[in-house]
């Protein structure tokens, strides 16, 4: 029995994580003690302030890593290729990619929180159920709705989910990664079931997500156990050593990698584990969908990058073929099934499946550093950039979806969107712009992202995947154009859609999403450089 050693906590470097967690806990306290009338404003401000404080922390840590003193403090690794440190007994790693992902998650969390706080669209109440415990269609529900009740627990739930998302890519061993997976998932399951309108659909979505999610977590845990059996350690650095040096029991390793992948691929919504995506995206309250679509993808891909590059990087010949198949399948399934959709939210859900495939294309484009030419884009850089572009356009697109309404709440049927271009040229124009970005038309961020991931995949010799990616892009382009055609060139059905005027909160989200989508399309240099400066993972 070894003696217990008190783990060393690098408080400065973990500050963003701690702030988000602290604010989440504080939110629970507010919920318990603050009077109902004061909760909304308190929670909203607390959440936003916490996110800003965490973001400031990320910037300061980044400056410290890049600063002059970094080398003396032992923060620079591998001839300046990587920056960062391990903390809490080597379970959490704060390095360049972690910081980049934290920054993204905090920005997306901020934009998501703005959408959560929107109360102008639905007659002075938020998009969340007045009282989740009241059964749909009962007197209790009617009473909650006439009293104008609001669930303000959504803010701490958002922060808990965000905490899990930030921990996920920062985890340096399989157990921490599993814990993070659960922390991010549980609040999301709950949030999905809290829609004010169409509550049965929302609750069904939550249950579906929970059941499948719990099932996939089981796979992840089993995979972790097998990899532990192979390597004798949960820690990524040690697993990497074992993969390099130990040829025995490679069967166990392979099965372990496969099972771990199931858990992670479920979270990113890759085929054949994509079945939950459309139902959950459709049923969840739109602000939750927006936040979840952007945040989960960033977090889960961050974790996947670390797991596959750090722990299994030496064994990439084993997992790359699997990723080839998954990526091709995901792109085709997402693009082809999206065509048949008649609901805007489901359509965006399938499009997000297709995007998962594109990001996987970047992920499997990993090469040894020695194989890269000077100035050539690396796969880590490409994936990080793609995640940023995808998050901004997805958040913006879902925010626009929340504006188009009829008497029953949001009008998500595609037929109701016909003629939107005449009704509200600005909203239709912005949505068309997001769709063009998702289709990867030049001068939008989506194009640069696509170019980046395709380049790295092609450079790694994965040309068949790129061929399929091009085919899937063509199919996907068709469906985005179909929506644009419906908005601009089709005659409205009946009264046509109405566009609700948002408050400054949703407007800000849409504006930031659109501005980022344009900026990253026209001048992607700074962010690409930032992703390059972030350097490599440390182990």
């Amino acid at each position, binding site marked *: 029995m070894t003696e217990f050693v008190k783990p060393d906590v690098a408080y400065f470097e973990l500050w963003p994580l701690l702030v988000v967690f602290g604010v989440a806990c504080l939110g629970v306290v507010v919920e318990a003690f603050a009077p109902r009338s004061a909760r909304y404003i308190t929670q909203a401000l607390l959440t936003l302030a916490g996110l800003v404080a965490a973001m400031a922390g990320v910037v300061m840590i980044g400056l410290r890593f890049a600063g002059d003193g970094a080398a003396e403090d032992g923060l620079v690794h591998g001839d300046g290729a990587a920056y960062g440190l391990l903390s809490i007994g080597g379970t959490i790693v704060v390095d360049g990619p972690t910081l980049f992902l934290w920054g993204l998650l905090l920005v997306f969390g901020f934009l998501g929180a703005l959408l959560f706080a929107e109360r102008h669209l639905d007659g002075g109440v938020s998009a969340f159920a007045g009282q989740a415990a009241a059964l749909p269609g009962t007197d209790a529900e009617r009473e909650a709705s006439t009293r104008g009740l609001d669930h303000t627990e959504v803010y701490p739930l958002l922060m808990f989910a965000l905490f899990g998302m930030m921990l996920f890519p920062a985890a340096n061993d399989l157990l921490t990664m599993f814990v993070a997976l659960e922390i991010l998932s549980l609040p999301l399951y709950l949030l999905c079931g809290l829609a004010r309108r169409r509550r049965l659909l929302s609750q069904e979505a939550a249950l579906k997500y929970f059941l499948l999610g719990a099932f996939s977590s089981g796979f992840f845990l089993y995979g972790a156990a097998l990899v532990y059996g192979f390597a004798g350690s949960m820690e990524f650095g040690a697993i990497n050593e074992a993969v390099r040096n130990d040829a025995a029991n490679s069967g166990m390793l392979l099965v372990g990698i496969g099972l771990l992948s199931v858990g992670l691929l479920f979270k990113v919504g890759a085929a054949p584990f994509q079945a939950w995506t459309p139902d959950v995206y459709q049923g969840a309250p739109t602000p939750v969908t927006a936040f979840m679509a952007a945040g989960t993808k960033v977090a889960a891909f961050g974790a996947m990058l670390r797991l596959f590059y750090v722990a299994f990087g030496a064994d990439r010949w084993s997992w790359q073929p699997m990723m080839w198949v998954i990526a091709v399948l995901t792109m085709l399934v997402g693009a082809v099934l999206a065509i048949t959709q008649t609901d805007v939210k489901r359509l965006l859900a399938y499009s997000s499946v297709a995007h998962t495939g594109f990001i996987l294309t970047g992920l499997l484009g990993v090469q040894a550093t020695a194989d*890269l030419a000077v100035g050539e884009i690396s796969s880590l*850089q490409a994936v990080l950039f793609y995640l940023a572009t995808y998050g901004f356009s997805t958040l913006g697109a879902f925010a626009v979806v929340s504006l188009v309404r009829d008497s029953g709440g949001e009008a998500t049927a595609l037929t109701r969107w016909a003629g939107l271009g005449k009704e509200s040229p600005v909203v239709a124009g912005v949505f068309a712009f997001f769709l063009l970005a998702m289709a990867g038309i030049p001068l939008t961020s989506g194009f640069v992202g696509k170019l980046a991931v395709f380049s790295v995949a092609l450079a790694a010799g994965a040309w068949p995947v790129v061929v399929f990616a091009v085919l899937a892009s*063509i199919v996907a382009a068709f469906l985005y154009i179909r929506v644009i055609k419906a908005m601009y060139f089709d005659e409205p059905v009946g009264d046509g859609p109405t566009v609700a005027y948002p408050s400054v909160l949703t407007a800000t989200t849409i504006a930031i999403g659109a501005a980022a989508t344009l900026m990253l399309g026209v001048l992607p240099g700074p962010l690409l450089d930032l992703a390059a400066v972030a350097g490599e993972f440390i182990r």
Partner: protein
Amino acid sequence: MTDLPWLTILVLVPLVGAVATALAPSSLSRNLGLATSGLALLVGVLVATQYQLDGGMQLTETHAWIEALGVHWALGVDGLGLLMVLLTVVLVPLVILASWREADEPGNGGVKGFVAWALALEAMSLAVFTATDVFLFYVVFEATLIPAYFLIGGFGREGRGRAATKFLIYQLAGGLVMLASVIGLYVVSADQGAPTFLLSELAALEIDPVTQRWLFLGFFIAFAIKAPMFPVHTWLADTTEKATTGTSVLLVCVLDKIGTFGMLRFCLGLLPDASQWATPVVVALALVSIVYGALVAIGQDDLLRLIGLTSLSHFGFIVLGIFVFSSQGAAGSILYMVNHGIGTAALFLVAGFLVRRTGTASISAMGGVEKAAPVLAGILLVAALAACGLPGLSPFVSEMLVLIAAFNHAWWVGVIAVTAIVLAAVYALWAYQRTMTGPPRPEVEAIADLDAREVGTLAPLVLGLVLFGFFPMPLLDVINPHVTDTLSHVGVTDEPPVVTTEPAAVEGGHQ
């Protein structure tokens, strides 16, 4: 004077004009559009005056754009690019003038949208013709589609929304296939140690033959859809049928040239071995396009569809000329690109004026128009004769050069291509006979002849047809050095064609 970034100005003028038009009240749209496109014409002419006839990339500008990807804002013109730039800046003001009232008619999207999108399309097209960075080329190549999409979808006849979607899907599909090749070029350059998108650096790479073929395929499919060529031409007739004729001019006479322009610059310029490898298939497809386009055109009842399909035949000639690898063929093709632009623009515009008067584009519903509108009929006849290659009008010269090159390449290629001249006479003259001659139908008796604005729009085009029909030398002076450069890169050397006398004129001018 020469220190100014002329080409950037050239691209920015219509772009700024487009934004200004979109923001200004629609009562100003027409004048703003005309003024901006006129200014662009002026800049284009100024660019031409600074161009030295000895070939190579000129007026080059290179600025780093996205350093992480090795992307540059790099512009430059060579002989080919210059002619395409001039064609664009000449045609856009004419289109705006020709569409003066049309876009405001009920059912159309309004003149503001038309002018703004047309100027945006001009800016993007000019950028395409001057880009010397493959990434930049790709960006603007795809960006042309957005204005084109809204021009087709917002203005024209019933069913245009569907036509616009079909157009966009075809073009995007081609573009995405090309994206794979663009990335492929980048990866090849990275594998050789210096990742870049610059055309000048890419042209210097040694690319192994197998890779070249794959890259060629990506580029060629995109350009074949753009041009268009059989069997990926089916968007063309639908689009020209539904869109306004002004839009059709922009599409067929400017935008489609990007296809053949790209074949010359990228397929031949960057992938010479693969281009020669693909010659048999490409020549066969070009021949099918030539004959099939002409045959189908004969069978059309819709005048605008007919004109669209004649372009299929003409683009077949252009591609044929490019891929027989001789200086006559290449020079003929480039000349053809210019002449086709002028001739087809005249044909589309005069047909548009006719369709607006009769209210129908159906050939069988017209007849005897020449009695009521002799000037219109006369110009239509000139444009139609130009399309079938009458000597004395400019397309004749280029068609002749391509045919000679085709016969030199292989006698049967020439024989098949030559049949198109007969077929062209059939579709052009038969259409003219059915619409213009005979007893006037009651519904066309009252139509007015062309007014001053319409004649003014068509006059420069007809003038160009006649002028370059008798005196193609100025164009060939620009073309020949470019052809010599391109062919020496491919590895073919022969004497450039001299159509008129005085070979000294080629060297004449600036040193």
